[in-house]
């Protein structure tokens, strides 16, 4: 019922072909975790846009990555509130816990560390987000516990 009411903008001439580019890139990243070279090729074939243009758009936006990532994305907030509340020490604790730097992935390919500006939970600063779950009011010494909890929760899901 609601299906036929929803307009498919792609069929509308005024919407233009380019409007699809970012959603297509987002779709590709949601599928693979990053933008693979072949995907750029595919998108180019589908939209008729040259690869250089697509690459230009993709590299403009912080969301798009060009390297494979770990199973889980761990985002450390460095927004204003988190900065004031000591986000730097959280990042340092995470980096030393995993032995990797911002933007890198653990050797077991479990976690990728990313820095973001504000997760919108500023009153719980400092905040980190593992995949969709937010953890707030952290201190550097909580990191071990949070990661352990997260690993265990993951194992329980697997066991189930």
């Amino acid at each position, binding site marked *: 019922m609601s299906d036929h009411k929803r307009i498919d903008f792609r069929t509308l001439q005024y919407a233009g072909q380019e409007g699809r580019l970012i959603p297509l890139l987002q779709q590709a990243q949601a599928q693979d975790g990053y933008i693979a070279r072949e995907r750029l090729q595919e998108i180019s074939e589908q939209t008729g846009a040259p690869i250089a243009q697509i690459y230009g758009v993709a590299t403009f936006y912080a969301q798009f990555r060009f390297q494979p990532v770990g199973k889980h994305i761990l985002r450390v907030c460095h927004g204003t509130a988190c900065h004031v509340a000591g986000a730097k*020490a959280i990042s340092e604790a995470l980096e030393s816990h995993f032995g990797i730097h911002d933007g890198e992935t653990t050797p077991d390919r479990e976690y990728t560390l990313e820095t973001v500006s504000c997760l919108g939970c500023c009153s719980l600063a400092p905040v980190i987000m593992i995949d969709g779950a937010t953890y707030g009011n952290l201190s550097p010494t909580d990191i071990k516990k949070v990661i352990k909890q997260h690993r265990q929760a993951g194992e329980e899901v697997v066991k189930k």
Partner: protein
Amino acid sequence: MKILVGLGTCGIAAGSEAIYRSLAAKAGNGGPRFELGKTGCLGMCYIEPLVEVVDDSGAAWQYGGVTEDKLDRILEEHVAGGRPVDEWLVWSDDGRGTEGAYLARQNRIVLRNCGRIDPEVLEEYLAVGGYEALRKVLQDKDPDALINLVVESGLRGRGGAGFLTGMKWRFTRLATGEHKYIICNADEGDPGAFMDRSVLESDPHSVLEGMAVAGYAIGADHGYIYARAEYPKAIERLNIAIAQAEARGFLGDRILGSDFSFHIRLKEGAGAFVCGEETALIGSIEGHRGMPRVRPPFPATKGLWGCPTSINNVETFANVPWIIANGAAAFNCLGTANSKGTKVFAMAGKVRRGGLVEVPMGISIREIVFEICGGIANDRKFKAVQMGGPSGGCIPAELYDTVIDYESINKTGAIMGSGGLVVMDETTCMVDIARFFLDFTQRESCGKCTFCRVGTKRMLEILTRICEGEGRDGDIELLEHLAHLVKNNSLCGLGQTAPNPVLTTLKYFRSEYEAHITNKKCPAHHCQKLLSYTITEACTGCTVCGRVCPTGAITGDKKQVHHLDQSKCIQCDECYKSCKFHAIVRS
């Protein structure tokens, strides 16, 4: 009896999903009977998870800081026994609880339904008068009168610039084009602000209704919401709300039997702050790199796909249905001569009660920070508030009687901005804050204008060296010089306002810059390179500092004075904070 659990992002982060599951299990388990429901965010983020008990007459009691092991007692004593558990109450309709003052001083227009209704149930929105404004507007069939009403209300855009919303609609209505568009700016890029997220998560239909009304006013048939990808919960609930509104005929073709059709589509941002700027945002929806362009032409005449477009902020839209329902006078009687209505602030930083507050314009910063939000956390000294994020500035404690009003805030050098208000205490270094924002704007500059691209980078380098104790004579003057160049030679608001955090901190906290440069000292004891930690003889050997140290820099035997290895110390301050014997000194 009904039990409601707050399931906004803050609540969930504090564990409210587990509370909800636990209550759901108990509901079917023979204990006291109750109906279980969900709500969004009430704005009391500092005391989540929140659980509300509502009796059959509609009277409500709110519990804060609820944990799973508190549930049994609440169920037994309150739900079954009718005796509220006073010690955990935060507020109640009969005047109990510790946090009544937080809500009592607020004036909730935008947040009217936040935390009061289930954002995923359309009927709950309808029950509080939802979509009545749209119905009225479609019955009156007079878009010009509608625009006049919004002009008369004095509503100004809440996205930062404060342009009169009704005027923007009028210009868009008068412009000619094959199609017209409404865009809702939900990019909320200010790092330290979460008003829009909370409204979208807690009351998405009010934003959709505001957009549909705006669409009718200007003659648009399509609307876009451009939402930050970092807000998964808001996006999920918006999608639910759009589908519900379409299914019930509040959106889509021939709305409520009228000849007005309006479709809303959600676009996810891709992580670029500059895309909050309206022309960049439009470029991004069109699928380009999000780079601002010269205005005029303004979007009102040439916007999305070259058609007239009115772009407004989430909070602006959320005000609209209320204004139509209650009239322009009810809105413009609040506030000051030029700033009407209310403003929502996202309170964060070193404040005791962090969360969302909605206050009438004209209230002072002091009233917000001290009377509503309980002052500074840990009884430290109030130093400044940062308003307006990367485009704004720091207002010092001496000016805390400044009132909330676009023009008064501008006079301090800060801006109203979208509503992020980060409170800072004596431990916050103002030079570091300026460096933090320049680091942000420098990264987020789209690179189109030379002064914004290169100027912010040079300014960041200077600020970084000052924070690292490498500051030189003349650096302050150089910063000021560059600041004026960047301000005057950038195309869009990002560059034009990027120097504000530097200029305001220089204006009010110049001595801090001088202390860094001349004495190589950070008065707030924040800048790492200018700090050192030592353990004194007062150490009792309790071993606490050794255990909290994340790098293992502190060693020592039990009951022996500990030793700190300077080469391993990352100045994280954890030992200092954990020491009960004041045996660790920072200098």
